């Protein structure tokens, strides 16, 4: 039967509660002798829920975690006489996803029915695109280093099709309970070519796809919530020999489990070929035991269903106008990997930091936009790098400690920009900058009627801007005071321990209440101590 191949039955254990077991069992995996002689071939089948807010063929809204059977239209329950009405927004989102995956869009795609009897499918057929999918022949490049991938390579996209999600069914005691809230939700099924060679490469593809879906707004790519689901095909063979028999592992709930499943399967195949080199491994569908991280057999190929695919006459063919398509192509937003490349190439900023900015809002790139607003047009690399530090390390660091969510209005980009430029001119110190950020994020949200200016903030903090580009405080005097306060440090310094100058700098900072420029303080101290 099909039971275990369907999604949504209760998982035996939650992710957080099994970390102990994971660690214990994970360490059990020992290296196999001659492991390097074997090559692993991996292909993925991904189901991504379309983020349209409504179901693919009915006006019912989509939902997650709501009271069962509350978002159900008669069509979702397959009531006699109901007909599907295709959500064209879902087609649009699928098209931009296919374009971002460099697919060829079929000018004419059609819908088919896939038949099987089970509780999770009231019509006894799923509407999918079997014969003429929306798109084919795409690719997504994985670069060396992504998710520890060891090479740069393309993952081919075999096809991308639109289809319906099933209901969730759950066995409780002697009964099967069905929740139709998910039934009829629109999915994109993305089938890759078997182009990946390691668990890391497969993980890299899924992570990259998640970012792509979020950026396009076509999906949330959230595996925990089940709106992105992955089936993986794995085969293993010795280099230079024909491909081995593949096994499919279904129901994988995270990238970590995906990688664990591939690893487990790889070891199992190698062990099999080592112990019985003449018999091919049995082709079957397997699941992953999330406790032991070992795969287990669900059903063998011989039990495979005949789905009796048939064109669905209730749905006209989707014919894509080339003009519409080129319009969509032109509107494609900058992809995460593209913005990383552009910013690192242009400004020499760190890839990691750009990724942090992307992570602030993977959909609208608000973080990236904020950064670019702060640095402005035609900036030099130095300002760009400084601004990155101020935003990613100082601002995000501070709000992280206070558990305040980031928002572009928390510190308006113009304010941030003004502050960074003042610091760069040496008119305020970095320490003052930190205080300004601290003040702004802890201050109550400014009322929209009054725009907060940097002047107000400085006034609030009792800090003056040095118009002459010099500190208003007398650094020399403070340094002398510090030297007087710390005779032991001075003695140590004179003995040759130059590191203790930090102690003296600290003393000056304390005396200046943090307004002194540490660089200048150091210069002054060195000068004074020479005497």
């Amino acid at each position, binding site marked *: 039967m099909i039971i275990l191949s369907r999604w949504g039955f209760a998982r035996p254990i939650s992710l957080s509660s099994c970390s102990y077991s994971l660690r214990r069992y994970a360490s059990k995996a020992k290296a196999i002798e001659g492991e390097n002689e074997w090559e692993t071939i991996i292909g993925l089948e991904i189901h991504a829920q379309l983020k349209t807010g409504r179901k693919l063929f009915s006006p019912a809204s989509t939902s997650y975690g709501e009271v069962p059977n509350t978002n159900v239209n008669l069509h979702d329950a*397959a*009531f*006699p*006489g109901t007909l599907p009405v295709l959500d064209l927004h879902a087609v649009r989102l699928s098209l931009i996803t296919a374009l971002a995956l460099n697919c060829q869009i079929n000018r004419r795609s059609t819908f088919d029915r896939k038949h099987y009897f089970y509780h999770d499918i*009231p019509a*006894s057929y799923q509407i999918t695109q079997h014969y003429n999918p929306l798109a084919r022949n795409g690719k997504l490049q994985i670069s060396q280093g992504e998710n520890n991938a060891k090479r740069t390579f393309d993952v081919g996209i075999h096809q991308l099709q639109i289809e319906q999600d099933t209901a969730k069914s759950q066995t409780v005691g002697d009964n099967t309970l069905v929740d139709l809230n998910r039934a009829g939700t629109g999915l994109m099924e993305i089938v890759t070519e078997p182009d990946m060679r390691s668990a890391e490469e497969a993980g890299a593809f899924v992570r990259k796809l998640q970012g792509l879906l979020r950026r396009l707004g076509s999906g949330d790519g959230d595996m925990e919530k089940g709106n992105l689901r992955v089936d993986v095909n794995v085969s293993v063979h010795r280099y230079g020999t024909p491909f081995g028999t593949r096994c499919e592992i279904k129901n994988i709930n995270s990238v970590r489990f995906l990688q664990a499943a591939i690893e487990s399967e790889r070891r199992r195949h190698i062990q099999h070929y080592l112990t019985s080199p003449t018999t091919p491994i049995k082709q079957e569908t397997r699941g992953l035991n999330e406790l032991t991280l070992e795969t287990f057999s669900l059903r063998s190929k011989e039990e495979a269903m005949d789905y009796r695919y048939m064109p669905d*006459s209730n749905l006209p063919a989707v014919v894509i106008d080339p003009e519409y398509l080129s319009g969509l192509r032109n509107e494609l937003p900058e992809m995460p990997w593209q913005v990383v490349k552009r910013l690192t190439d242009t400004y020499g900023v760190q890839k990691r930091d750009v990724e942090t900015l992307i992570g602030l809002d993977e959909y609208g790139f608000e973080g990236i936009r904020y950064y670019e607003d702060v640095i402005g047009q035609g900036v030099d690399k130095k300002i760009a790098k400084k601004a990155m530090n101020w935003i990613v390390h100082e601002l995000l660091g501070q709000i992280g400690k206070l558990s305040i969510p980031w928002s572009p209005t928390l510190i308006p980009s113009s304010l941030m920009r003004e502050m960074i430029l003042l610091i760069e001119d040496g008119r305020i110190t970095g320490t003052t900058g930190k205080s300004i950020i601290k003040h702004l994020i802890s201050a109550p949200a400014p009322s929209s009627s009054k725009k907060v200016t940097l002047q107000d903030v400085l006034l609030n903090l009792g800090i003056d801007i040095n118009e002459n580009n010099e500190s208003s405080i007398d650094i020399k005097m403070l340094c002398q005071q510090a030297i007087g306060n710390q005779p032991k440090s001075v003695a140590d310094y004179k003995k040759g321990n130059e590191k203790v100058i930090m102690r003296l700098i600290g003393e000056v900072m304390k005396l200046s209440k943090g307004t002194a420029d540490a660089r200048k303080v150091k210069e002054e101290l060195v000068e004074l101590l020479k005497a």
Partner: protein
Amino acid sequence: MRVTKCRLQSLKAPLKPRTSDIHPTPYSWINTCTPGSSTGNLAGISIAIKDNISYDIAPTSCSSSMLKDYNSPYIATCVQNLIAEGAHIAGQTKMDEFGMGSQTTHLPPFYTPVHNSASPSPGEPPRSAGGSSGGSAAAVAEGSCWAALGTDTGGSVRLPASYCGVVGLKPSYGMISRRGVIAYADSLDCVGVLGRDIDTVEHVFNVISRPDEGDMTCASSSIRLTAFDISQRHLPHDGIEGLRIGIPSEIKQKVSSGLLDYLRGQGAKVEEVSLPSIKKALPAYYVLACAEASSNLGRFGGGWFGSPLERQSRIEGESGEERRKRIRTEGFGREVKKRILAGTWALSADEFNNTYLKALHLRQLLRKDYQNMFRIPHPLFSPSIPQNQAGVDIILHPTAIRTAPVLGAKEAKGSNEYQQDLLTVPASLAGLPCISVPAGKGQDGWPLGVSLTSQWGMEGLVLRLGRAVEQWSKGQ
């Protein structure tokens, strides 16, 4: 005029439909609610609907045990349109289970039979009303409703119309919304109209032939406009003057020469035409209809729709799968099971290419035959496709190979059945409008009908020629 008188009669004193547990009746359900006083094109007029068209106050059972006492939670679009124009839904009419049959004899055991009321003399053994919309045709013939909706997948409106001596229109595929019509075969199913005369049928058709966003296969306003423009250009100014009528050489049954002479006399041209693919296309119909039926009927037995049988819980020790098998075995009649099995077979991985795909191809060939034969361009296709200027406008042939058969009589299987399907199925496969109009009597005194088929969207044309046939019949 007879037509007007008839309509007035039905408005003033409509015959009450009757239902009975003992006596034959075309109705499976009678609407006892008194029609509300309303205005509209159909104000106060009684219209019956077939038992597979969803109506929320009626048990829409498709004349199947599977859906016995199933109460649809919504109203089909076509019925909504009728009600919006003030029509009173007289009741639901019996049919062959899920539309599968041609005599309205595939009924669940708790239904009394449907008798054809067109008997020329009392005391004759009861005859079939045809099927699968036999209840609708019989209800119109007995006068208990002004008109009735049926559905036509391969002749289910036209054959009963011929047997019962009424007019039956199967419109072009996509003219009337199928939303709420319980599917037999989606690519073939059409809602049809049965009435005493052409005027009645046209009147009802005009009310329910409109776009529906709830059915993606229902023709849009723009396509309807195109079709209307084309039909205006080809409709004769007066009567049937200049109309070209084709008689397909592949069909053995001929209409009376008297009728053809009359039509020629009215200015029509009659000529022989050929549809070379028509015979090969016939098996395609069985494959496609059964395949689609096997898919559409898969939903029954899952326990979703609230009929008591369907909702039955598992027997002790029974698995969910076994329960489904039992409910489907008990709930479907013999003919339905036969067609589901045939359709399942046609869709199986081993057969699909050789059976289903070939059927699609043959259907395509037949469509091409029709397009090559018609002088009028197809509104759905690009106007750049050159039309056959020497082509015909309408195809004419008998609707049935015989008058209504006596109920319970052993039918000679095989050739007869095939010959009959040749008369109704091609228009369904091609999605073309086809009307059956009473045209005289057989030697036994029972009614006979002729079928008129035209280009997609040319309902106006078939109704126009239908009127001429009606005139001729009156003179008989």
